[in-house]
């Protein structure tokens, strides 16, 4: 990479302003096209038949009646998706998850699919497919699944990461461990020790747009896929591999996306739609129902976590230990590992040890959900930290400040931190007026901290300058919440032109090089880096063209404030050439002017947040109300501060929902009981107060503008912040998330 990504302090003219987003008008007028808003001529309707059982062997599938129904154009089963994964275990899991092969592993697992002329015919066809099951015992609870007598979900799984290779298969796919020092010794030095066990239930990202795609496979091996996704390049790779297509012949266009939060990082329906289209020889539109989204997409892990923290009387933590068990659905995952890495990341610890267990259960395959795995670990740790502060008799903010990680601290997950924001967010919290506001009876205030890694990744961007001097910016990271506005600001900043002259779009997979997904809070971080690089490449061309127009050496041309300037006394009579003037002449100076960039945007700075909330509890019913909520988080540099605030507020709201009401509820039969927005209760407008935000800007040394990812960290602290507030309001320590009214009331009654 010939591009220097290091931070250089500068004054910004565009970055940091708050213009209207380029895709805004389309979105307020109903013109923006999402996954289900696209149609092709001759398109069929696809629908998926799903298992009603949590765990069963498929003994036979008879599709003959469905095939004979008039209007049915294709029926597929796993036989139509042969295994082309070539030993790639994780892709095999993806394939098996798209269409069950021999065994169904959860309620909702796809077993067959149809394409028909209309929805009614497709629905009827599903009823005509006969699937014979041999029901197997199932397990959905994380602790139950770890027991020796638990039903085995995959008898080829032997726990990885143990000192000795196990002789028996297990539902635990992996054990992972992090830490340093000697916790045994550390606890020996502690005057106070808090030890507790916690549980969190499974939640869903809850994006309002169900998965939707239109697939069109031609007999010559070319194909098109229109889809709502967080990463169309990744979808292309996965679909091409599973279908045996050449990646370059599969053009994937990302529609506008109606929310993802990690849930649209994984293929489910898309390979099925492509296989249906291939078999039917016609385009197929496949839209999941809301019920299917809950039963058969990728919710987060349910967890069971033990935490032990010890501290001296003076408030110094001497040791910290956690064991974390995370469900990953019926396939191997790395979710407990992430929990184990993030659990104590906020603190400076000499002795720390975390152990994670990945646990198979008969639930949908776990997918990422905003800072995946961190909120549950933070719930356990930050609850214990608060309790420990109380036992010692020290203010919880002071206690955290005293033990906060700093530049040079060895993180609990291994490396040594560079400049980080945990201390500043805590100091800001300490001095925030929210901390001093009065509280009434049955009201309590809680606070908690959160950490997320952030990452960057492969990124490719094109910047084209039109002959009228306006700029089109083609990026490959899907815009999930306003990044086209941020990236336009960055292009304007770098070129020195006005924001209104830049138009950013998300290009399809045939128009741009590979891009990783918009995940890991990387959208604006990575694509802004690539945009800066592309703009600098374009500036090289602009300087060259100006040099030609002036007929002087290019080395004598500099770029400043959106114009070329001839540097040196001898050029005193040359007035600067604006980007517009150079662009107008481009046809005569060498053709179109463009800047391209491809890079790996590594070095995303880690991110920290501190949240404060006030909760009121009705002691007679266990009902809670969020009275006030404040988010303080480091953004590195807020490119478009309004959308940064939006990320803070949105993550906090999701965390509040998780803390209070959201959960997957399985019956004894292993079937999901609440596959809809009626009983999977995400916060509604009247549930929440305004969510105040405070943006701190501690520049990331590894980004030219100092940008850090901001998307995920805001979901990490709320679970614990609310649990701590409930504890302070009514004196009960809630150890089971969500803190639904029945759970709070039961805890209050138990307390007497």
């Amino acid at each position: 990479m010939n591009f220097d990504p290091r931070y250089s302090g500068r004054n910004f003219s565009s970055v940091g302003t708050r213009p209207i987003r380029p895709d805004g008008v389309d979105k307020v007028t109903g013109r923006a096209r999402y996954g289900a808003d696209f149609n092709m001529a001759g398109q069929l309707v696809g629908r998926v038949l799903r298992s009603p059982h949590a765990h069963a062997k498929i003994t036979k599938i008879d599709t003959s009646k469905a095939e004979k129904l008039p209007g049915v154009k294709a029926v597929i089963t796993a036989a139509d998706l042969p295994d082309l994964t070539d030993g790639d275990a994780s892709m095999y899991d993806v394939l098996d998850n798209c269409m069950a092969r021999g065994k169904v592993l959860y309620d909702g697992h796809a077993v067959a699919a149809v394409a028909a002329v209309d929805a009614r015919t497709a629905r009827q066809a599903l009823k005509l497919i006969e699937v014979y099951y041999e029901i197997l015992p199932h397990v959905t609870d994380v602790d139950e699944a770890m027991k020796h007598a638990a039903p085995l979900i995959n008898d080829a799984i032997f726990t990885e990461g143990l000192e000795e290779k196990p002789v028996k298969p297990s539902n635990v796919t992996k054990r992972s461990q992090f830490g340093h020092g000697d916790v045994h010794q550390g606890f020996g030095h502690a005057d106070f020790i808090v030890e507790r066990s916690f549980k969190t239930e499974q939640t869903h990202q809850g994006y309002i747009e169900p998965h939707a795609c239109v697939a069109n496979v031609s007999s010559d091996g070319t194909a098109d896929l229109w889809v709502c996704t967080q990463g169309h390049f990744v979808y292309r790779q996965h679909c091409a591999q599973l279908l045996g297509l050449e990646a370059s012949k599969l053009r994937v266009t990302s529609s506008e996306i109606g929310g993802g939060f990690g849930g649209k990082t994984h293929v489910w329906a898309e390979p099925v739609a492509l296989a249906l289209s291939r078999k039917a020889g016609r385009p197929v539109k496949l839209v999941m129902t809301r019920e299917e989204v809950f039963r058969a997409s990728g919710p987060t892990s349910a967890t069971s976590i033990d935490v032990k923290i010890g501290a001296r009387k003076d408030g110094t933590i001497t040791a910290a230990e956690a064991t974390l068990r995370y469900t990953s659905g019926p396939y191997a995952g790395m979710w407990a590992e992430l929990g184990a890495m993030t659990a104590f990341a906020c603190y400076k610890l000499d002795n720390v040890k975390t152990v994670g267990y990945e646990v198979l259960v008969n639930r949908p395959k776990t997918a990422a959900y905003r800072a995946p795995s961190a909120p549950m670990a933070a719930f356990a740790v930050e609850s214990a930290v608060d309790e420990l502060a109380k036992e010692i008799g020290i203010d919880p903010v002071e206690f955290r400040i005293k033990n906060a990680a700093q530049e040079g601290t060895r993180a609990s997950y291994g490396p040594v931190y560079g400049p980080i924001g945990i201390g500043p967010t805590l100091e800001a919290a300490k001095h925030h007026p929210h901390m001093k506001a009065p509280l009434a009876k049955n009201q309590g205030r809680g606070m908690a901290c959160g950490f997320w890694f952030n990452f960057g990744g492969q990124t490719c961007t094109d910047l084209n300058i039109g002959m009228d001097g306006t700029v089109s910016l083609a990026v490959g990271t899907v815009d999930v919440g306003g990044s086209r506005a941020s990236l336009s600001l960055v292009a304007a900043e770098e070129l020195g032109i006005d924001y209104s002259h830049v138009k950013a779009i998300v290009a399809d997979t045939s128009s741009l090089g590979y891009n990783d997904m918009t995940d890991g809070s990387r959208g604006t971080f990575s694509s802004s880096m690539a945009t800066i690089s592309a703009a600098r490449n374009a500036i090289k061309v602009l300087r060259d063209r100006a040099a030609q127009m002036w007929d002087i050496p290019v080395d004598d041309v500099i770029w400043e404030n959106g114009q070329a300037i001839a540097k040196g006394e001898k050029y005193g009579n040359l007035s600067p050439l604006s980007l517009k003037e150079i662009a107008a002449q481009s046809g005569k100076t060498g053709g179109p002017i463009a800047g391209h960039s491809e890079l790996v945007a590594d070095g995303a700075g880690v991110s920290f947040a501190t949240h404060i909330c006030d909760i009121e509890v009705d002691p007679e019913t266990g009902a809670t109300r969020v009275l006030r909520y404040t988010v303080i988080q480091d953004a590195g540099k807020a490119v478009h501060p309004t959308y940064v605030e939006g990320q803070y507020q949105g993550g906090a709201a999701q965390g509040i929902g998780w803390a209070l009401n959201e959960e997957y509820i399985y019956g004894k039969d292993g079937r999901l009981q609440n596959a809809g927005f009626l009983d999977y209760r995400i916060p509604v407008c009247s549930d929440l107060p305004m969510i105040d935000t405070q943006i701190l800007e501690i520049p990331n040394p590894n980004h030219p503008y100092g940008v850090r990812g901001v998307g995920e960290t805001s979901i990490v602290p709320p679970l614990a912040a609310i649990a701590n507030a409930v504890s302070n309001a009514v004196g009960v320590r809630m150890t089971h998330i969500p803190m639904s009214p029945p759970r709070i009331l039961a805890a209050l009654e138990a307390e007497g």
Partner: protein
Amino acid sequence: MVEVTLWGSLGTAAGGKNKVDVEAKDIRELFRKLGEQYPGLEPWIDRGIAVSIDGVIYRDTWSKELPQGAEIFLLPRLAGG
């Protein structure tokens, strides 16, 4: 020669070591030599390992140089939402 710290589980795969010395100038060479010296690590490298150099995490930049005396720490490759 750089000293490389392995996270807990990776240490187990390297025969119980949590620090190893490797003669490598960049991440690419580091991975190659780790695979040679500790064959148990190869499946882990295939699945993806991130490298922290002085606290900055690199997932994909295999050309990244490993400065002498830098703190090199290997981590699992991360997923995000």
